[in-house]
């Protein structure tokens, strides 16, 4: 069965994945919208850079992030100067790293979804007095609902499963940065297979239920979308 420690890691995982998904919704949405609407020539560069974290092996990316977030790193100097303290080996360091690493999973599906809306609904909204910001929330967001769900699903699942970056940045500190993926890994490495299987099964089941709920919600016929 699950030990108290295991349950703690699950709780931490849910907290991390939810928080990262939420933060990425907040960060990724304007980025994706900007990528769709902007007419500057260098937006292709930005779009490509956004996807880049994906191509590095997680532990290597983790190492670079650690360099950046460490006391001598640019990010580390910044957080220390602003009184936020040191980020590595803390929960918030994990959050930041996961946000960077999962950014493309949020931005790419939103980009596609926003693009699919086209000009007309925006024009209609403008003739009905909606400001661009208002239009974004009352027209663009509801019309790209499936894109948001896809993005949130990918981000959430990826953050739950992420482990290379998390292990590197988090330092596997119990109750703070030891999330379920790290715990499962530890169990496997320690040849504690039955604990590993149980925890993996619980994570799978939990995630399956989350994904299923999102999916059912998405295809519900009378949602009006």
């Amino acid at each position, binding site marked *: 069965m699950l030990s108290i420690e295991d349950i703690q890691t699950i709780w931490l995982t849910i907290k991390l994945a939810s928080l990262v998904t939420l933060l990425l919704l907040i960060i990724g949405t304007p980025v994706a919208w900007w990528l769709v609407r902007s007419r500057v020539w260098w937006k292709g560069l930005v779009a490509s850079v956004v996807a880049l974290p994906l191509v590095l092996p997680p*532990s290597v990316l983790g*190492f670079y992030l*650690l*360099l950046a*977030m*460490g*006391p*001598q*790193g640019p990010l580390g100097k910044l957080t220390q100067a602003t009184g936020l303290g*040191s980020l*590595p*080996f803390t929960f918030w360091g994990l959050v930041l790293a996961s946000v960077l690493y999962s950014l493309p999973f949020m931005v790419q599906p939103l980009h596609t979804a926003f693009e699919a809306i086209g000009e007309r609904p925006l024009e209609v909204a403008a003739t009905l007095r909606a400001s661009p910001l208002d239009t974004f929330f009352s027209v663009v967001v509801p019309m790209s609902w499936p894109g948001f769900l896809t993005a949130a699903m990918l981000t959430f699942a990826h953050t739950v499963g992420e482990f290379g970056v998390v*292990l*590197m940045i988090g*330092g*596997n*500190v119990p109750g703070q940065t030891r999330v379920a993926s790290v715990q499962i*890994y*530890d169990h*496997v*490495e*320690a*040849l504690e297979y039955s604990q590993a299987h149980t925890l993996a099964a619980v994570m799978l089941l939990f995630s399956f239920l989350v994904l299923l709920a999102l999916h059912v919600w998405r295809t519900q016929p009378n949602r009006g979308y």
Partner: protein
Amino acid sequence: AEPFTVAIAANLKYVFDDLAAEFKQETGIEAQSVLNASGKIATQVRQGAPFDVFMSADMEFPEGLYKEGFAVTAPKPYAYGLLVLWSQTGADLSKGVAGLTDAAIGKVAIANPKLAPFGKQALKAMEFYKVKVALEPKLVYGESITQVSQYVDSKAVDVGFSAKSIVVAPETTGKGKWVAVPEESYEPIAQGVVILKHGIDNNADAARKFYGFVQSEKARAIFAKNGYKLP
């Protein structure tokens, strides 16, 4: 024929280049290495990995393989790993493990004691100096001894319990300071080697020669030069 393959624990990566060069000179046989964490190699061997010899970072994984019939020789230690304290942030290491409780010293990295023998021995050393409880809040855990080195290297921690083989490697010389952890405070980590069943079936000659070579004087010299204690 299949290339002769030696599965090596991650910490052996750069020693192995020297070993393989010497082995080639002696026998004319090319030894190719496959690097991974010891535990993962053991799992892969159980699933039929085409490895001929296994040089582990401990004795337990080869022991297990031998008992289950995946290895054909009883594990033999070829070298002992030694613990050091390593810092690149200018932390004061002069008081050794006991001095780590000093408030001036921040985070301390050790390898995960559950997974890595180096981590287990690091805890033992802390217990010896009776600072384990005091240090606990400062500890961060690396997946392996290499990750501990990365923590030290990135200066994200002040001090790490690393391996002597790492701090004497050419890649790290001149980076920060290190002090050895006195050997009375822990057990140097025995690293065992076994010939695998796949080796006997496919590359018996090379495997036996390499198994012998690892324990030869030439090999011992290479291990010694690279910061290992000899059996």
